[in-house]
């Protein structure tokens, strides 16, 4: 079949080759750009990419709108802060925490997911919003364990073969790169599997899904658990890198930010989600601070662009909803939902190629 369509092979080679090339470029990046603040920015963006990949499982695949996702980020971060610092005198190694924290976060995913199983749509969103508020509030109020608003600082420095990570962002950058690669692999595997189809079936029609023998309880909880485990990972690395956790890092705006990354990039599409997180991270922690310091250097001392952050997000989301509601790189299904009437022959051919590729 591939031979009958000119360019089909090239397109597939590009699909395979592009991620590889991107991966190599990212591996080389810290050697090419010795500016630590750039690597630092990329590492932070990496943590958000991990978060977005996890939320995409819950919202994009299974269709469960979760507005409190930052709670699991908080749980991952606090796990590291409490188990690998002077706080309790426990010093679980960083690498071991990368195994433990996702499990802890997944358990909380199940715990917080269970009460929402019967809820759908708006109601589910409101309850998850509540959980998103409760978790940081709990860390704030359990001050005898968490130091309340001051948070926990002086976390253990990770080290590899006896070399501590130190204050350079580069080691964290590589850890996150590896975790994102694993995350992409995991998300792709899940998408094309019995479980992934069950998630999508629930998203499309829960009653019909039950008639297929799908246990909707277990299937939804597994989405919450797996989604949360990604943010457990992100939390550990983020906390270790920042050397500090405090409740105000996990406010509602973090949940909204990650959800906006999905909407911007294309919900349900792994590459779209990654692009969306990168773009928003770039605006948030690079473009706005940089332009602010430029403005200061130019003599506009009282101008602070970072204050316009949320206005800018708002404008971006409104523009997206108006002109490209399915996101920058949409999933097939989202694109079809928003553009039912139009049938694009090029898109149809691409779908056919993807289908053939996936089913070979």
């Amino acid at each position: 079949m591939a031979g009958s369509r000119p360019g089909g092979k090239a397109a597939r080679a590009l699909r395979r080759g592009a991620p590889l090339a991107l991966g190599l470029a990212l591996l080389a990046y810290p050697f090419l750009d010795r500016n630590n603040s750039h690597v630092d920015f990329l590492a932070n963006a990496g943590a958000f990419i991990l978060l977005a990949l996890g939320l995409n499982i819950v919202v994009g695949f299974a269709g469960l709108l979760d507005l409190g996702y930052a709670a699991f980020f908080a749980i991952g971060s606090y796990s590291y802060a409490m188990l690998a610092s002077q706080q309790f005198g426990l010093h679980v190694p960083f690498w071991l925490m990368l195994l433990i924290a996702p499990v802890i976060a997944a358990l909380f995913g199940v715990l917080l997911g269970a009460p929402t199983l019967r809820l759908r749509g708006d109601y589910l969103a409101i309850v998850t919003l509540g959980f998103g508020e409760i978790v940081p509030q709990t860390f704030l109020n359990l001050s005898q364990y968490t130091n309340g608003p001051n948070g926990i600082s002086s976390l253990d420095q990770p080290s590899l073969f006896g070399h501590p990570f130190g204050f350079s962002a580069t080691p964290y950058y590589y850890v996150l790169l590896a975790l994102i690669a694993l995350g992409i692999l995991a998300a792709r595997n899940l998408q094309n599997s019995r479980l992934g189809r069950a998630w999508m079936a629930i998203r499309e029609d829960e009653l019909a899904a039950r008639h297929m023998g799908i246990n909707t309880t277990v299937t939804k909880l597994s989405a919450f658990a797996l989604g949360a485990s990604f943010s457990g990972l992100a939390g550990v690395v983020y906390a270790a890198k920042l050397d500090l956790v405090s409740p105000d890092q996990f406010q509602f705006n973090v949940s909204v930010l990650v959800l906006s990354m999905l909407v911007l990039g294309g919900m349900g599409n792994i590459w779209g989600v990654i692009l969306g997180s990168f773009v928003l991270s770039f605006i948030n922690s690079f473009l706005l601070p940089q332009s602010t310091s430029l403005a200061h250097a130019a003599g506009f001392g009282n101008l602070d662009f970072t204050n316009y952050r949320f206005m800018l997000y708002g404008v971006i989301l409104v523009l997206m909803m108006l002109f490209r509601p399915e996101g920058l790189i949409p999933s097939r299904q989202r694109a079809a939902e928003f553009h039912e009437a139009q049938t694009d022959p090029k898109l149809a051919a691409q779908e056919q190629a993807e289908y053939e590729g996936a089913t070979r």
Partner: protein
Amino acid sequence: MALLRLSSVSKNFGGLAALSELSFELEAGRIVAMIGPNGAGKSTVFNLITGIYAPSSGSIALDGRPLGGLNTNRIASLGIARTFQNIRLFAFMSALDNVMTGRHARMHASMLDSLLHTPGQRSEERRVRERARELLAFVALEREGASYARNLPYGGQRRLEIARALASDPKLLLLDEPAAGMNPREKEDLIGLIGRIRDLGVTVFLIEHDMALVMNVSERVTVLDHGEKIAEGTPDAVRRDERVIEAYLGRADGTAS
């Protein structure tokens, strides 16, 4: 032994008796139809069999095993598959994925298998995909595997629902008005398809309003009216039954039944 047995099944919604004291048996390997005027309680029977509703009283058993208290997904995995009166496909999944999803209950891949794509998971996926392709061909949709379910023409959607239901290798297939909205040509094809499904060893139980189709395809017919069974027998016998004629057409003296 009967494949499916309903014993004095009643269902009340508040004060409304949707079904009263319904008893009947389905023999394995048959094509059986259930007819009756709108609101007679036919779809309620299906919803009771698949566990969407619990009976107010009475019991339902598959192969002698009572289904009381079992969830819909559990009942589905015991071998009862269905289609819906208002098509309920997974609209934004491909036709092939719809059928593969229908196989869910017969698949073994765990969450970890799905995450890691273990060799066992891969070969299971391959087998299920192959089987799904066969089923698409069985309902004459072999060229539509990549299309979204919702982009299929109406008749194709009805057939895809049947393929999805068959993917679980059911003992009993419940078809809820399979001919609704079909043109005469499609109906004819459907009659052939239902026959071929029975030849696979699947017992077919259908609700249908199209009398020509019912009389043509079914071996036994059960007639419901106002939640009660008013007749049962071969299509010919049912067609001549006075209570059935009355239920559909009213009484000869002009008073409504």
